[in-house]
């Protein structure tokens, strides 16, 4: 399935997905008018028609829809994010891409560390002093009492007013839902997506769905839907070594 050729029939737009992106990037289409959940629904319908899950397409779709949602969320909350709303759409897209890349790199680095830890699991070395080593006495030079007062005054100083708010994602991060769904699946083998996201905003629901796709991509869950728009049923993937390991690690977190 070619994601860019996905035919959309939305209130604000009719045509292929790549044309929609082009119009949005050119600011000829107001993203606030675009029903992103509708795009997700169309994509899911096409997937369902094909009967098998096209993982490559899901991955590509995930990145594109995440980008759209981020841009849209920014546009919808201009007052809460004054600094970001000052960004040109071009810059916003760039900033978004930068953050996606940053988070992705952190995840890649984490995956590398996990592999390394596994490979170095048989590494044993002494922690602490040797049994027959001489005891070391740590001696401290005379200190200035004033340094204590300085330290306490520093602790009493008003925190810097530099706000990190402009750096925070308003848009709920996919990772939040990943962790949430993993937690649910540790307690229950199966759950209905609709019940889990009940009461959330549409944007949150869409992000929750993205998280599900990501879990499916990693073979952590199986998804079932009896018919388009029927409740999506999420179940833990068949028990594999991988899952056993995940649970084991999760318990020690």
């Amino acid at each position: 399935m070619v994601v860019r050729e996905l035919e959309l029939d939305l209130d604000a737009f009719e045509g292929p997905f790549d044309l929609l992106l082009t119009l949005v990037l050119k600011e000829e289409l107001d993203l606030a008018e675009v029903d992103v959940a509708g795009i997700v629904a169309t994509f899911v319908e096409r997937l369902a028609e094909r009967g098998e899950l096209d993982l490559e397409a899901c991955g590509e779709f995930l990145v594109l829809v995440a980008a759209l949602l981020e841009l849209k969320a920014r546009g919808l909350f201009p007052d809460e994010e004054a600094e970001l709303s000052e960004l040109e759409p071009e810059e916003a897209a760039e900033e978004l891409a930068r953050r996606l890349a940053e988070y992705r790199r952190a995840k890649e680095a984490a995956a590398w560390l996990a592999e390394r830890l596994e490979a170095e699991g048989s590494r044993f070395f002494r922690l602490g002093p040797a049994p027959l080593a001489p005891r070391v006495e740590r001696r401290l030079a005379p200190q200035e009492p004033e340094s204590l007062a300085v330290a306490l005054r520093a602790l009493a100083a008003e925190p810097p007013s530099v706000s990190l708010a402009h750096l925070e994602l308003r848009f709920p991060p996919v990772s939040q839902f990943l962790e949430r769904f993993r937690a649910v699946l540790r307690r229950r083998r199966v759950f209905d997506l609709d019940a889990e996201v009940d009461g959330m905003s549409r944007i949150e629901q869409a992000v929750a769905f993205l998280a599900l796709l990501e879990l499916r991509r990693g073979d952590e869950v199986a998804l079932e839907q009896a018919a388009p728009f029927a409740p999506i049923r999420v179940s833990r993937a068949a028990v594999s070594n991988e899952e056993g390991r995940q649970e084991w690690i999760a318990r020690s977190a």
Partner: protein
Amino acid sequence: MDRPLRLITASPVDRLARTIEALLVVASQPLSVEEVAEATNDDAERVETALRLLSERFAEGRSGIVLEHVAGGWAYRASREAAEACGRMFERPVERGLSAPALETLAIVAYLGPVSRPEIARIRGVAADSVVAGLVERGLIAEAGREDGVGGAIRYRSTPLFERVFGLDSLSALPRLDDLGESTNEIRERLESVAQRRPA
């Protein structure tokens, strides 16, 4: 006496000896024959044979690592030949100052003590366990009862060594902090309220 060298290298006792060699280099306590036998899944007699073998290899004059039988079992030590170098390595220079976390914690204990770890953590905005343990080990602070009697958190106060290091006759000689509050309680409240506003 056919090719004895080859025999030794390939013999299972030598393999056992190599494993014991490894256990001893990881241990931070002397190891008893029983402990080694359990870890290697081997019998005590064979372990003893292997240890004898090792103590010949790791012997004074032959090796820098010397295997010694002490009260609690077997452990490596440095050879006498290396005593001078070891002396130089362990002779730590006098430390010039404390790390920032240690100084912050010490200031809190000195001015607000006796004070508990949870309280220190609230003021600093971070768990205080390892820093407090370090200061106790250095003798700069010490336990001083518990909060609200039995079951409360342990509280800490500064020690006479602390006063000596900082050149204080007593705690009342600490520099004044009138700008922060009129009483210890006021200072404490101010620190806690600032901590709440600090970025996590």
